[in-house]
Structures are given as structure tokens and as C-alpha cells.
């Protein structure tokens, strides 16, 4: 490597480091800016690397500052170009001083929203300033060249076509080596569709870049114009991707999402352009080529970049496959891969003889792509029999088989009777945008200052995060790795039709504590709606807890023992918690108050099963081994705990509830995690209840009744002999009643379910046997019947079904809004 090349590489590495630090600080700022995202991810320290970054931010910041000064040394040494010197010196002074201001980042959580809105964009200022210096130092490329720098049409066309084919082939290879078994017909059909949609994406790119080229040809410095337009398009693409895909998933409203995306898009496009203007313009380069081709060398260098891009994308896809946010990360990888491929092919085809601009070369590829997509759908009417070959099924699979094609399909294909008005009304509702100032509902399951209950059994509530019911023997006879839970469930009450109202911990957990449906702004009013806490306090329980969702919002004077406080939330371990609980029980005296224990361990959360899978997961045919192996360990610990409390006699006067806050997708149909999903695997939960010995035959229940996690708290109140009012369907009701009564039936009621993140809504009707899902993030709707175990069957989304369910979802949303709206 020559000295110039080494200096260049060091410069790029330095700028990249500074950019990464600034964008990471900005990302953290954005997360704290959204009350929902802050409460969900930052407060419970769900991502330890993020917490570490923030804790050490001062080191990162000053390192980035020092490195940026090193990259500015040439400008700081030369006083001949005074504006440049002034800009560099001002950078040194301002960001040396503003460091104090930016060092507020670790304390963002404690600041007001107004202060945050100043600091968050401030994190992008250093890179924008550096980019300005780069442009000031080097000017725009092509501005002093005779060559007009416009990209030939044939070069652009060939680069786009080959980029599409290359990406399609790369993803096909990944799918062939890693994809679930679909059968050759389905796989071949999906691949065919993927090719058409990959070509469609690049037909769009070809059209837009051709527009830039044609417009540039009308200007005196065509190359510079083309270059600037390409950079602007990169900025627009980043803004659109964040605005439409990433930020809605964090429940940002339209205006906030636009402002945030605009800041990031402008800053990253500027810094990119700064790096490009500092690079030498290669022979016969054009505005587009210079903006998009980053690699050194000619065709061979481009080939190396293509191979690297494909390999890194394949590896990246494997890594993110099991992460909760896989769908977004897959899109990011596909878009980055697409950009690199386009740049490489532009370089490759720059060396070929070019043809004159031809109307046919402009029109035919675009029309052919449009015709191919319409043709595929028309031809699909001839498909018969195999549901996997139906267009809807193929479009559904596309994001999993080829993220770029899936991304294209999202915008180019709509479902029948797509109702924009409905989608807009749901997206605008207060259940989607976190309520900033919710009111405390008038109706309550419990009165403050209750008289002591007539009965005070020990109560153990175990909410195992992300525990899937079909991974437990009582719900699925194919499971052999949970024998202790199986034996226990056989002796007690196994509710077969239990659901969570929310597909994520953040909303599901407060719904358990309050015993009612909640709104996304629940954190501000939890002390007033926390039925379970009122019960624990007023009944005088010895309160033991390990949970990170509600614990910070319990009333300060609620006495509690927090188990294993040294373990971070994501590492909470059921076995360790149960050992600590047993130790706590052993320390108590004969006349001690009864125990109320609430544990919410994360052993089988996808953050653990997806990333830190044990090397020897064991053999669990038909099940996801990293998950099943962890569950097997939990089962053994739970069995040991049950034996211990049986032996000590504690179990005879105890209520034990085993459930989860939501389920998870473990590669089902290629999907992972629970972030935006409401599929049966996500919202069906296990619910097994042990009653005190004396109560087991003194009550009845309906084990097949539609049951929610919101029923847990009213059940505990009722079993303690407290009166529980019969409220509407937004509140839970007791699971157990006297043998001469019937639990409240729910066969004719509708219940709205929703994802914790993003805007995915669902409706359960007919005792929870009919599930309808409106996925507003992906503009998709689904229907399921849930009679067949373990996960039900997909059903057709007919127009009448859509109308009825959409109307019910809107109606249920209105009820929630009315419940929490401040008049």
C-alpha cells in the first residue's frame, strides 16, 4: 500500500469512527426521546452494549473528537486557505467546548423533552460540520473537468440489471442453504417472484438515476449536478427508509418520524459525500459512479467488493435471523448490499463501449418489469390446489426469501380491498401514539384501603418471559422436555385457551398488575391503576419480586425484597431466582406474613435463545433446540422448587400461577421474535394455576374459556375472599367461582389484541377461536381459526370478514381511548 493510499485509508477509518460514535449517540437520544422506547428498552437496560456505550460515552466522545482533529490537521496547518482554516479551527473550538453539552447524553433520561429535543439533533452536528469542511476543502467533483461526467444510459442499465440478478442469486443461495423446507415447487415459485421484484426495484433505481442523468445533461457542469442529485437521492432513500420502516416500529408519530429521519438522512448523506469529494475522480468516472462506487481498482476490485458484499450479507443475515428486530435488520442489510452491488457494477460497466441514448432502452425494461408483475398476478388465477403457490402466500414469503424483493412487494402489491381510511384511523389513534397524559379510569377492580382479606394464602406468580405454550407438555403431547411441569399441571388447573392482550412485555406486564387493558402511556399512572400492588400492600404480604418492567413504578413505600439485584434484566435466571426465593422462605419465622412472590425471568427470551445459544443445545426434533434446552433446565428447577415447598408444607396453603407475558416466533414460517407480531404463537400463553389444598374442590372454573392475563389479578383477589366487581370486557374477571355458579362467559365478546411495539392489531372473537390480524407496519391482514392444536390454522381473509373485524378493532380502540382519555 502506498503512503497516499495508507493515509486515505486512515482518513476514511477516522471519519467512520467519528460517524459511528455520533450516530450511536443520536440513536440513544432518539430512543430516550420516545417515552415508549425509553421505558421499553433503555430503562430496563435490555441491550447491555447500549448501556455500556452510554456509561462510557465521555471516553468515546473525546476519542472521536481527538480523531476528528487528526483528520483535520492539514486544514489546521494551512492558513493560506483562510475559510477552510477558520472552519476547521471553529470545529476544534466548538466541539471541544460543546463536548460538555454532548456529555449530557448519559443523563438524557433525567431531562425534559424540550432539552432532549435540543441534544438529540446536536449529536449529528459534528459529522455535518466535518462534511462541510470536506466540501470546502475539495469542492465538488467534476467542477473543473472538461468531461461532462454524465453516466451513459447503457452503463446504467447494465449495472441495474446485473445488480438485480446478482442480489437475487445471492439470496437464492442463502435460502437454499438455510431456508426452511418448503418443497421445490414453492421454493422455485418464490424465487421466480423474487427475481421479478428485484428487477422491479432496480428498474425504479434505473428510472430515477436516468432522470438525474438527463437533468444533469441540461446543466453546464453536468457531472457535478449528477453527483449532487445522486447524493440527494441517497439522503431521500435513508429518510424514507427510517420514516416508513424503522421509526413506526418504535411508535413514533408521523411528524416526529419525519423530523428524526430528515436529520439522520441529511447528516449521513453529507458525511458520505464528504468522503467521496476527498477521493480522486477516476478516469471516465461519472457523477453517479463517483457517488456510489467506493472501491479501489477496476473490474477486479469491483468483483472483490461483490463477493465481500454477498458474503457479509449472508453472514449478517444469519446473525440477525434470531434477533427480535430481524425484519428491519434484514432490510438494512439488503439495502446496503444493493448499494454496494450497484456501485460495483457501475464500475465494471464503465469500461465497456457505450451505446447512444435510446428510447427503447429506456422504455422496454421498465414496461417489461411492470408487465411481468401484472402477468404474474394474472397467471396466478390459474394456480390451483396448493395454497403455498397462491400469490398471497408467495408475497408473504418474499421478505424471508429475499428481503429486497420483499421490500419491493410491500409497496408494489396490495391486498384485496385495502382500506386506506381504516389504516389511517388506526394509525392516528391514541393507542398507537403513546398517550402523554392518560387519565386514571373511573372503574377499578379494587378499592383503596380494603379490609384485610378473609384468606391470605402464599402466592407465587411466575411469568416466564416469552414462554410458548406449545413448548410445554400440558399443551403439546409432542413435548418431552418439561416433565415436572407436566406432572404438576395434571394435578392442577390448566387453562387451555389463555391469551395475552399484548404481544410484548412492555404492555403485557402492566395489564397483569392492573387487571385491565392498558394504554401505551401506562407508566405515568401505574400507581393509581396498580390493583395487584394495592392488594399486596393492604393485605400485608411479605412481597418478593424480580421484575424490571413495573418495579420502578411501584409506590416507593411499598415494602419489597428485590431478589438477585446484581443480575441485569436480560440475564435474569429462573433457577437462580427460585433458589433465592427458597432461601427467603427458609429465613422466615413461624408467624411471618404470607409471601407474595412475583418473578419474571428472561431465560427463554429471544435475546438469550437467539444470540447466546448454548453450543451443545441437544436434540429436540421438531423444536428450536436453544429454546427447548433452556426450558428443560427451567423445568428441572421448577420441579425442585415444587418438591421443596411440598416438603415444607408451604404448598398446601399456596396459590401458584405459571404463565408468560407473551409467546414468541422461533423460526415459524421463517419469522423470529415477537416485536410486531400477533400470530397465535405470540399471543397464546400457558396458564396453569395451583390452588390451596382446601380450595381445590370448593370452586369451579371453565378451563376452555377465553382467558387473559388480565384475569390473574381479579382471580387472586377473589380467591382471597375480596369482592370483585363485574366490570366490562376491558377488565379481567375471576377464573374461579363457587361450584353453583358459572365463570363469566366470553363467547360473544370481541377482544382487541395489539403488539407492544409498532402498529399491529388483532381481534379475538368467539371464545378466542377466531383471530384476525391487521399488520399495519407491513400492510398485511391475516385470519386464523384456533381449534386445532398447537397453533391453529390460517383462514381466508374474505371481504366481509375484513369489514366486520376492522369495524370491531376501531370500536375497541375507541373504548380504550375513552377509558384513558382525560376529559
Amino acid at each position, binding site marked *: 500500500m502506498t503512503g497516499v493510499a495508507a493515509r486515505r485509508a486512515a482518513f476514511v477509518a477516522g471519519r467512520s469512527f467519528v460517524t459511528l460514535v455520533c450516530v450511536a449517540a443520536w440513536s440513544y437520544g432518539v430512543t430516550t426521546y420516545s417515552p415508549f422506547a425509553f421505558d421499553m428498552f433503555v430503562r430496563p437496560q435490555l441491550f447491555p452494549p447500549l448501556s455500556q456505550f452510554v456509561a462510557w460515552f465521555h471516553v468515546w466522545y473525546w476519542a472521536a473528537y481527538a480523531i476528528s482533529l487528526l483528520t483535520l490537521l492539514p486544514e489546521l496547518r494551512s492558513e493560506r486557505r483562510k475559510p477552510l482554516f477558520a472552519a476547521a479551527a471553529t470545529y476544534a473550538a466548538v466541539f471541544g467546548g460543546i463536548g460538555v453539552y454532548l456529555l449530557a447524553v448519559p443523563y438524557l433520561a433525567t431531562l425534559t423533552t424540550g432539552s432532549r429535543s435540543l441534544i438529540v439533533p446536536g449529536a449529528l452536528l459534528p459529522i455535518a460540520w466535518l462534511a462541510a469542511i470536506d466540501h470546502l476543502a475539495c469542492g465538488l467533483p467534476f467542477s473543473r473537468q472538461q468531461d461532462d461526467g454524465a453516466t451513459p444510459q447503457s452503463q446504467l442499465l447494465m449495472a441495474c440489471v446485473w445488480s438485480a440478478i446478482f442480489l437475487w442469486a445471492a439470496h437464492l443461495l442463502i435460502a437454499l442453504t438455510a431456508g426452511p423446507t418448503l418443497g421445490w415447487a414453492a421454493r422455485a415459485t418464490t424465487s421466480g417472484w423474487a427475481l421479478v421484484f428485484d428487477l422491479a426495484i432496480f428498474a425504479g433505481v434505473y428510472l430515477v438515476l436516468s432522470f438525474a442523468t438527463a437533468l444533469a445533461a441540461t446543466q453546464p457542469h453536468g457531472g457535478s449536478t449528477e453527483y449532487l442529485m445522486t447524493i440527494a437521492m441517497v439522503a431521500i432513500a435513508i429518510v424514507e427508509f427510517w420514516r416508513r420502516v424503522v421509526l413506526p416500529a418504535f411508535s413514533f408519530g408521523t411528524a416526529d418520524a419525519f423530523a428524526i429521519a430528515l436529520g439522520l438522512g441529511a447528516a449521513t448523506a453529507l458525511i458520505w459525500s464528504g468522503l467521496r469529494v476527498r477521493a480522486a475522480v477516476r478516469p471516465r468516472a461519472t457523477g453517479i459512479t463517483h457517488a456510489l462506487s467506493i472501491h479501489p481498482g*477496476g473490474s477486479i476490485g469491483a468483483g472483490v467488493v461483490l463477493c465481500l458484499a454477498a458474503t457479509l450479507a449472508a453472514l449478517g443475515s444469519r446473525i440477525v435471523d434470531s434477533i427480535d428486530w430481524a425484519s428491519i435488520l434484514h432490510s438494512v442489510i439488503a439495502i446496503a448490499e444493493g448499494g454496494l452491488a450497484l456501485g460495483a457494477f457501475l464500475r465494471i460497466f464503465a469500461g465497456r463501449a457505450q451505446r447512444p441514448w435510446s428510447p427503447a432502452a429506456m422504455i422496454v425494461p421498465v414496461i417489461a418489469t411492470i408487465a411481468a408483475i401484472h402477468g404474474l398476478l394474472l397467471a396466478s388465477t390459474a394456480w390451483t390446489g396448493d395454497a403455498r403457490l397462491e400469490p398471497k402466500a408467495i408475497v408473504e414469503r418474499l421478505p424471508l426469501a429475499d428481503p429486497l424483493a420483499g421490500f419491493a412487494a410491500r409497496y*408494489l402489491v396490495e391486498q384485496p380491498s385495502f382500506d386506506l381510511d381504516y389504516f389511517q384511523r388506526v394509525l392516528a389513534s391514541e393507542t398507537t401514539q403513546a398517550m402523554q397524559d392518560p387519565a386514571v379510569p373511573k372503574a377499578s377492580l379494587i378499592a383503596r384501603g380494603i379490609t384485610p382479606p378473609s384468606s391470605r394464602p402464599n402466592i407465587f406468580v411466575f411469568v416466564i418471559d416469552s414462554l410458548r405454550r406449545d413448548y410445554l407438555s400440558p399443551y403439546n403431547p409432542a413435548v418431552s422436555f418439561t416433565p415436572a411441569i407436566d406432572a404438576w399441571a395434571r394435578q392442577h388447573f390448566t387453562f387451555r385457551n389463555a391469551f395475552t392482550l399484548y404481544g410484548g412485555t412492555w404492555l403485557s406486564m402492566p395489564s397483569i398488575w392492573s387487571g385491565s387493558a392498558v394504554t401505551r402511556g401506562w407508566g405515568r399512572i401505574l400507581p393509581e391503576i396498580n390493583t395487584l400492588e394495592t392488594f399486596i400492600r393492604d393485605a400485608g404480604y411479605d412481597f418478593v419480586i424480580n421484575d424490571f418492567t413495573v418495579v420502578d413504578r411501584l409506590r416507593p413505600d411499598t415494602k419489597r425484597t428485590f431478589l438477585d439485584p446484581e443480575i441485569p434484566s436480560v440475564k435474569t435466571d429462573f433457577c437462580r431466582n427460585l433458589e433465592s426465593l427458597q432461601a427467603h422462605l427458609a429465613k422466615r419465622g413461624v408467624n411471618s406474613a404470607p409471601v407474595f412472590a412475583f418473578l419474571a425471568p428472561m431465560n427463554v427470551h429471544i435475546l438469550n435463545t437467539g444470540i447466546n445459544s448454548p453450543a451443545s443445545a441437544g436434540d429436540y426434533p421438531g423444536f428450536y433446540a436453544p429454546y427447548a434446552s433452556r426450558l428443560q433446565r427451567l423445568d428441572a428447577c421448577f420441579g425442585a422448587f415444587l418438591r421443596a415447598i411440598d416438603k415444607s408444607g408451604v404448598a398446601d396453603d399456596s396459590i401458584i400461577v405459571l404463565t408468560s407475558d407473551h409467546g414468541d416466533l422461533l423460526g415459524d414460517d421463517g419469522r423470529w421474535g415477537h416485536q410486531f407480531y400477533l400470530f397465535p404463537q405470540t399471543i397464546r400463553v400457558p396458564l396453569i394455576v395451583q390452588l390451596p389444598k382446601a380450595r381445590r374442590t370448593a370452586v369451579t372454573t371453565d378451563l376452555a374459556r377465553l382467558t387473559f392475563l388480565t384475569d390473574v389479578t381479579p382471580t387472586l383477589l377473589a380467591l382471597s375472599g375480596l369482592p370483585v366487581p363485574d366490570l366490562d370486557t376491558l377488565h379481567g374477571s375471576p377464573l374461579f367461582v363457587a361450584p353453583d355458579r358459572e365463570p363469566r362467559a366470553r363467547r360473544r365478546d370481541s377482544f382487541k389484541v395489539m403488539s407492544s411495539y409498532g402498529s399491529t392489531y388483532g381481534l379475538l372473537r368467539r371464545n378466542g377461536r377466531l383471530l384476525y390480524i391487521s399488520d399495519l407496519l407491513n400492510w398485511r391482514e391475516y385470519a386464523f381459526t384456533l381449534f386445532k392444536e398447537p397453533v391453529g390454522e390460517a383462514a381466508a381473509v374474505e371481504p366481509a370478514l375484513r369489514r366486520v373485524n376492522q369495524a370491531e378493532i376501531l370500536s375497541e380502540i375507541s373504548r380504550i381511548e375513552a377509558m384513558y382519555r382525560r376529559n
Partner: protein
Amino acid sequence: MSASYNRRILSTPLTPTSGPSPRIRIAAIVALLGLSWLLFPVRIPGDTGASTDECLRLADHPPNAAVSIVVLEQCVKVVPADVELQADLGDVYARAGRDADAERTYRQVLDIDPDYADVQIKLATLLIRRGAGAEARQHAERALSVQPNRQSIRELLADTTPQ
């Protein structure tokens, strides 16, 4: 490597300048963008389906006298997954004295949802009425497994015990 690439690329002819003027090119591209905007998004041919809003909502409330057997029968055909609707039809048959139809309908419900305790009880009651005590007992026991300790089911079970 880079030098040979540069030599080759410099030896390739420049972009020919012939062809339509930039303004015509822009017009053509804008026309294509407009056409794409008009033709997308495409719509997947949907399930037209036979179900109707009325049938899908019919079981939202218990059937009243105004709902005729004919309407219920038609709706059960177009919304077969709605067991509530079928159970309602069974009830209407039973009230009309059409025990055989009621029994057949209840059995259809239980084929789909064997955990529907109330229908197990209703079927058991019908079976007792026509003297099929042994089969009635099976249904009552199934109901009791879903609603353990429920007094009315225990009484039903007692009725199925041969005297």
C-alpha cells in the same frame, strides 16, 4: 491492475452524443414514472368469499325470536367456523322440538370444539331425554373435565346413572 483498468477505460469511446435531447429524455422518464404510479400497487385477486356481514355478526348476541331458522341455517353454511352460530341453531331446533336436528347440530359443534362444555351438557340432556344414558354420561364427563366441580354437571351425571 488499476493502471491497466485505467488504460482500458480511457481507450473506450466516449458516450456518443446522438439521441434525443435531454428535455425529451426527461419527458420520457417522467411519463414512465407517471405510468408506474398509475399501475402500482397491484392488487392480488382476493377471496370473494360467501360470508356476509350479517352472518358474521349474527352470533354476537343470543338469537331472538326474530331470527328465523332459515337465516341461521344459511349462515351456518357460509360461516362454518363460527361454532357459536351452530350452537345457536341447535338451541333453536331444540326449542322448536326438532330434537334430531338439534342433536345433529350439537354433534357438529363438538366435532370442531369438543371443549365447548355447554354444548356437551345440552347434548347430554337431549340424549338422556331419548334414553341414551351411557352416551350422555360420556358427554357429561367431558363437560366436567372442562368445568371441574361444577354442580349442575354433577347433577346431570347423577341423572345419567342407571337406577
